[in-house]
């Protein structure tokens, strides 16, 4: 953790993350994960796979998310993943990944490009069918997709039986949060 004097602000603009419970669901603003995109450079598939293995970073296939110890990742596009790691230990995530990946991958810090809301509880499909085309009823844990919620390009990641994440553009955190809240109120 760098020893600087700047105090962070959560995407919703507070010192601490916002947690909202509506009926059976809880919507939690998450600020404790660092993100980096990892994109394979030309003809570097093997090198990227080896580096990922060394670091313990999973490289799931299209439409998927995978957790493996410290790191978790989800698929962004052909040969491209978003890698997640604990913020406290991996704030400068690019500096941590780069030495191992070297020139085999293009790595870009994405931590603060996004706001992440974890939504937990029962009957999440009833809420999310009011938000996006992602068919939660036919997808299980480990599915991830890019979709649109109230005009915002978002990732939806099913992390567990009753837990998913919505990762959307940080500057629109308040709009996205509002969309989640009204959908939950409508559903429950």
């Amino acid at each position, binding site marked *: 953790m760098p020893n600087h004097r700047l105090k962070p602000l959560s995407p919703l603009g507070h010192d601490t993350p916002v947690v909202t419970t509506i009926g059976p669901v809880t919507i939690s603003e998450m600020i404790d994960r660092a993100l980096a995109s990892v994109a394979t450079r030309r003809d570097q598939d093997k090198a990227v796979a080896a580096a990922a293995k060394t670091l313990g970073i999973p490289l799931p296939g299209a439409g998927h998310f995978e957790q493996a110890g410290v790191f978790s990742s989800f698929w962004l596009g052909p040969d491209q993943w978003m890698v997640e790691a604990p913020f406290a230990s991996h704030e400068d995530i690019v500096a941590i990944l780069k030495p191992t990946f070297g020139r085999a991958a*293009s790595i*870009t810090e994405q931590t603060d490009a996004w706001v992440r809301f974890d939504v937990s509880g029962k009957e999440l499909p009833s809420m999310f069918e009011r938000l996006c085309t992602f068919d939660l009823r036919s997808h299980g844990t480990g599915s991830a997709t890019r979709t649109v919620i109230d005009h915002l390009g978002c990732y939806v990641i099913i992390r567990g039986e009753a837990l998913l994440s919505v990762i959307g553009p940080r500057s629109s955190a308040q709009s996205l949060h509002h969309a989640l809240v009204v959908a939950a109120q409508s559903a429950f």
Partner: protein
Amino acid sequence: MTQVRRIAGGQIDRSSTLNFAFDGKDYAGHPGDTLASALLANGVQLMGRSFKYHRPRGPIAAGAEEPNAIVELRSGARQEPNTRATVIELFDGLEARSQNRWPSLAFDAMSINDRLSNFLTAGFYYKTFMWPAAFWEKLYEPIIRHAAGLGSLTRLDDPDSYDKGFLHCDVLIIGSGPAGLSAALTAGRAGARVILADEDFSFGGRLNAETFSVDGIAGAAWAAKAVAELASLPNVRLMSRTTVTGAFDHGIYGAVERVSDHVAVPAAGKPRQILWRIYTQRTLLTAGAIERPIAFENNDRPGIMLAGALRAYANRWGVAVGDRVAIFTNNDDGVRSALDLKAKGVDVAAVIDTRADAKPLDGIRHIRGGQVVDSDGRLGLSSITVRMANGASDIIAVNALGVSGGWNPNLNISSHHRGRPVWNEAIAAFVPGPDGPKGLSSAGAANGIFSTHGALSSGAAAAVAALSDLGIKAAASKTPEAEDAPVAISAFWHVPSSKGRAWIDQQNDVTVKDVKLAHQENFRSVEHLKRYTTLGMATDQGKTGNVLGIAIMAELTGQSIPQTGTTIYRPPYTPVAMGALAGRSRGHEFKPTRLTPSHKWASEQGSIFVEVGMWLRTQWVPKPGETIWRQSVDREVLATRNSVGICDVTTLGKIDIQGTDAGLFLDRVYANTFSTLGVGKVRYGLMLREDGIVMDDGTTARLGENEYVMTTTTANAVPVFRHLEYCRQVLWPDLDVQLISTTEAWAQYSVAGPNARKLLQKVVDQDISNEAFPYMACGEITVCGGLRARLFRISFSGELAYEIAVPTRYGDAMIRAMVEAGKEFDAVVYGVEALGVMRIEKGHVAGNELNGQTTALNMGLGKMVSKKKDAIGMVLSQREGMARDDGLRVVGVKPVDPSKLLTAGSHFVVHGKSPTAEHDDGWLTSVAFSPNLGHSIALGYLKNGAARIGERLRVVNLMSKAEKEIEVEIVSPHFIDPEGERLRA
């Protein structure tokens, strides 16, 4: 008020009473009633006035096809016009009013139109209101619209919310009558994902309105049993109060669920309606059939209904519309209505059957080969005139008449992809054709199979076939025992009449006479017939009238009905509230809002914000005592130029570009060269479109050998990213380039002014002296004791300036740290107004100059287009007309009289020439008041501008009320520091 017309039976809950009001009068009904059934139970038949002639009207149907009983619901902001009383679910406290009448429903002054009907025929408006042309829009149309009202709008904001949602299934079943239930059971039992949608609040469709049995129990009871089984299947979703409104592309159907329309006010947080987008593999249309009338003189009197509706009101709602009724039919189903009513104890005065050879009825006066030729009664039916087969007449006193001209399959949705219905002579009706929406098939009455047994078996068979397409094995279980009567109909459309009016389309007041007139005036194609007479153009889309109109036209032309053709339906199947189409996208939530990292700080300062796309940016930051925006902006500009100013520039697009071919990629997308840019350096870049016009500009920094970060304008952040992705994926997939947006990842601030370095040095941990960090340098640094950051020495204002970026979560703390550090320099935070003033003072082009019509040469940046390499737009930018030396050039403009204020958009005209298009020499693109120079300044595009520095001419603004012309002098666009000494300081 007692429910005088209520009879025994029906699916209403008599243990509970619901109070409601119609036209201010109180009535009572029961759960299970519709507004129409409850009013009819209370003896109210008159529910509205017709559109054109203001004729008194009552309901003719018991469902969505209703053309007449159109009412205004609720009051205040929730008032809703044009709702059909026949589908409004009754609730306690419901308020409804009749429409299109003044002063009252019983006495309507506009019914004078009815007396003028000889003039108000089809084409009346086209023929009459021709002259003078200018009167149409301002005089005629408003008066006509006022007279022909369809309810009124309150102009108040709708207080309710509406959702939009997305559903997925293997099979969508539209309609829950016997065919739909049978299909749903078959598909549901096979494990397929099924959605069964019905517009009604009860499942069962026509089974609820009939007396016959299915599998030995009452039809309605069988339906309830089937629904209970379906509800137990997790793969089946039952959606009542849900109208499938249309078939759209790729297996998508629209549906409106009325979540809260059956309660007075939606529960907290609940939407009034949800517009669902249903993604389905296969669709079964099992929407039943709609009975059609037979046209005869004065067939629109309240009390005259479709025979099946009379039967439905009796069987489902326990309502005898009249206590003495007659039936006018050309088919056996009409006869069934008479029998059902008789069984309910209603006095059936006669069955007038157009078929002379119909099987005689026992115990009912059966006038075979007869016709109803007229009706009488003031605001409701009192008698009908019948012509016997032998030509004799009889007047029969009745207060309700059921009319059955046969049934039309409810094929609306099957024609949404231009699916042409086909004529089926056996049932004298159109059935869904083979070319409708892909993946849609029809069953039951919607497909012309009218018996209950046929509906049950065809529904199951259609489900088996649909599932088989999807590779799901299903077996149709044994069809339940049910009536299987063949259709016996003899087509009969209208009773010939020479003088009176016989209605076809009751909502738009189209009569048989109108069709004859259209024929006489040669509007004979069905499409012309429709537009000339307005047949089928009302909110009901002619569900009851269209086929009748076509049949009459066929008779007139001597062609068959299939030769005459048919019109097809369009979405929506029934009217959809605008609120449902808008969903949550209204008011402040019309689109998402993007907030900058300094937003919280800026809000605390009382900043004025401006919408820039979806962003809210600080426009200026007023200080106490400043009452006019110019005071704030002038102060911000002067303070920046004299000391230092800070501006949030996070909104500029940032694109991370990496890969071993990143430099080559940039050379191809930018007009100028980037592969030669040194690591740790920034360069201004100009991006062209394929046609050589400037697309965007910005700076790109080289952070490493294979790492660049591009900035774009705020407006073009997304279009440029999309363009780069297209180039990468489609044009040059062989290049090793990876892209990702980092716009939101970094909070970026411009720090500009002679004291910029001094301020920044207080927060940056490294040496940023001119030697260590010269003009156009960039690099990764740390701030405030170790936070990773990026620094770019670039300037938009023309001052010594930097842009500094920190991870967004620290953006708020960073601006506070810089404001604190800047106190000793009297630093200001400036908004986009001051930013605009300074870039005009410096002569930098921005959105007003990058207007999608101009080239690099026009902007005075022609030399940036490198001819040494190929890049998008390079070749076409060299076209003769675009490369002319005397073309438009950006110039600076100042008023000769410094007290004059210039206006953007004014056009250059030389002295002595009239201000007309042929003397147009260009225009002012950007205008500002320069507090440094003390007068108005502008940038503009001037023909041959480079050669005209020093010239005086006029700028003309013909739209100005005050001063249309101002004399100006053409100057260099660089008003401030033309040599660029400040930014290199």
